[in-house]
């Protein structure tokens, strides 16, 4: 082995080792006043860097760049592909993140464990743009900890070229005649929720008895599914491998944009709403910067950029005014209004839910 080459690479190693000496996460004088204290007369200064921990591709690069330009704060955008991934790194003691993007039931759990920092609304005046119907929900009843980012539903997509029968609910999807042509989210909690709703129970009513009640129905359903996919269920549709399924509304919207033959139907037995929001972990080094970011993305013109990339339901009413008629007409992005439940934190029984679906899958 060439010694000179080795020495050079060794040096490179040291150089890169030095590259990540702790970034200046030293928040300024006052890292964000707590909710209970009186707001200071002088505007608190943010730190120089912001560690954003969010869903991949949920934050368009233009938004990040725009924020940096306006405030001079450098944004480090780290990504994850599921709530659980985010949670596991956060809890295992990851880098101090300033912003995370949990779904509603995770926020509930984090609030219970006192892991979120309350927001000082004086720094986030644009919060007024958010749809009032999305405020005061069970996971954050006093609107202390979160700013809605995008909301959506979970519903049925049908390739109307292939399937002409009317599809109204979960029971219509999971029929023997569609065996091998169905896609489902790879999410045990979701599947259990659908089974509960199809059985006339509430989707959050997860108890051992109820799990036993829906087990036979779920067992049948699992046998009929061709693909389980939470990351990109649209792939199976676009490849022509499935004709019907239950997926996230964002996926459905992308399918609809691709071809209007992909219809989106909200199950009549009951559909739930999900809300992904921005929240600030308790250990965040740059809380002020985080709140500034929240205010920034609540601006209508910025929120519009997010909708363009991600056709979920935009919670920002002012931003909705800026969307094109075509975007607003997408039935998956803006379904008919209705009372829908959100997921609550179910705590430890989540492991029973997981075991149930694992069992059913394994016995196939």
């Amino acid at each position, binding site marked *: 082995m060439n010694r000179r080459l080795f020495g050079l690479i060794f040096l490179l190693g040291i150089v890169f080792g030095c590259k*990540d000496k702790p970034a200046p996460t030293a928040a300024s004088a006052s890292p964000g006043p707590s909710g209970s204290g009186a707001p200071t007369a002088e505007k608190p200064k943010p730190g120089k860097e912001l560690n954003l921990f969010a869903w*991949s591709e949920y934050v368009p690069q233009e938004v990040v760049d725009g924020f940096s330009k306006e405030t001079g704060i450098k944004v*480090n955008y780290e990504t*994850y*592909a599921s709530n659980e991934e985010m949670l596991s790194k956060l809890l295992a003691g990851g880098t101090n993140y300033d912003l995370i993007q949990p779904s509603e039931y995770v926020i509930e759990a984090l609030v219970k464990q006192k892991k979120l920092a309350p927001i000082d609304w004086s720094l986030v005046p644009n919060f007024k743009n958010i749809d009032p119907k999305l405020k005061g929900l069970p996971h954050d009843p006093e609107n202390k900890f979160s700013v809605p980012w995008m909301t959506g539903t979970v519903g049925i997509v049908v390739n109307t070229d292939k399937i002409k029968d009317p599809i109204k609910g979960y029971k219509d999807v999971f029929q023997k005649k569609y065996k091998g042509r169905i896609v489902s989210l790879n999410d045990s909690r979701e599947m259990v929720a659908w089974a509960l709703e199809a059985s006339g129970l509430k989707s959050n009513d997860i108890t051992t008895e109820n799990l036993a009640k829906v087990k036979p129905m779920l067992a049948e359903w699992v046998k009929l599914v061709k693909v389980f996919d939470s990351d990109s269920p649209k792939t199976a549709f676009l490849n022509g491998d499935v004709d019907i399924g239950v997926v996230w509304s964002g996926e459905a919207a992308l399918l609809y944009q*691709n071809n209007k033959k992909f219809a989106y139907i909200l199950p009549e037995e009951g559909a739930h709403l999900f809300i992904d929001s921005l929240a600030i972990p308790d250990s965040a080094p740059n809380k002020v910067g985080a709140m500034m970011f929240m205010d920034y993305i609540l601006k209508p013109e910025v929120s519009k950029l997010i909708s363009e990339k991600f056709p979920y339901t935009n919670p920002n009413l002012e931003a909705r005014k800026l969307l094109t008629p075509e975007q607003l007409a997408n039935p998956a992005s803006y379904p008919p209004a209705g009372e829908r439940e959100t997921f609550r934190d179910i705590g430890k029984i989540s492991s029973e839910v997981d075991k149930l679906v694992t069992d059913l899958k394994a016995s196939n």
Partner: protein
Amino acid sequence: MAKKLSGMRLVNLLLGGWSGLVFLFLYIPIILLIVYSFNSSKMAIVWEGFSFKWYTALGHEIADHVSGTKRSPLVESAINSVIIASIVTVFSVILGTAGAWLLYRYKFPALRSITTLVYIPMIIPEIIMGISLLIFFKSVSLTLGFTTVIISHITFCFPFVLIAVQARLAGVDPALEEAAMDLGATPMKALFLVMVPYMMPAIISGGLMAFTLSLDEVIVTYFTRGPTSETLPLRVYGLAKVGLSPILNTISAVFIAVTVALTVAAESVKGLNK
């Protein structure tokens, strides 16, 4: 005599044919990937038409990034991945080769246990390794960043080198080393001038494996990275949600084309094989 020769030649021909088929098998998805890099649709999986647009887009992105005009996370993560993988390979090769040699040279009661320990990073599920390394780094107050990623990668890469070199050492003729020392070489010289060249094919195999493993690792990297140390596979995983963009195929196609060209064109690097 002619019978034997043609027999061997036939066998060689068959082996060559089989190997050709296997190479084809290995490159089929690559060929598809290259074809789809010319896809005009913005979702990689749906073919819409032929277009160079992703190549021009990538070209612009690279140019902008290199000239400092506009930072491209995609290009940056690709560069990070290659640098990390290179450093990891060097250290894995050193650690693995030295380890294999020492475990071959010395005999002591704990030998079997140590060998078992070497296999552990291969069997341990990645998520467990990722989380436990994260906890470990936190407990020794090591900031997450390139260093932690490199350390984690070395940990699961070097066993591959070690095992490959060990296999090469098994059955080596000890006379090889003895002869060198008989001729006046010091043990160190004998090691470097005789044994290392002997081990070289396995070192190269191991090095290639280590590089590959590091370049494409996701789960452990996810847990041990810092906010500024993104790698290409992590980036790709994120993009799957919106639908893999053909630009990923483009960057892969370019990468493959460059590496294959370099490989084929390279002068025979070492005469150390024999």
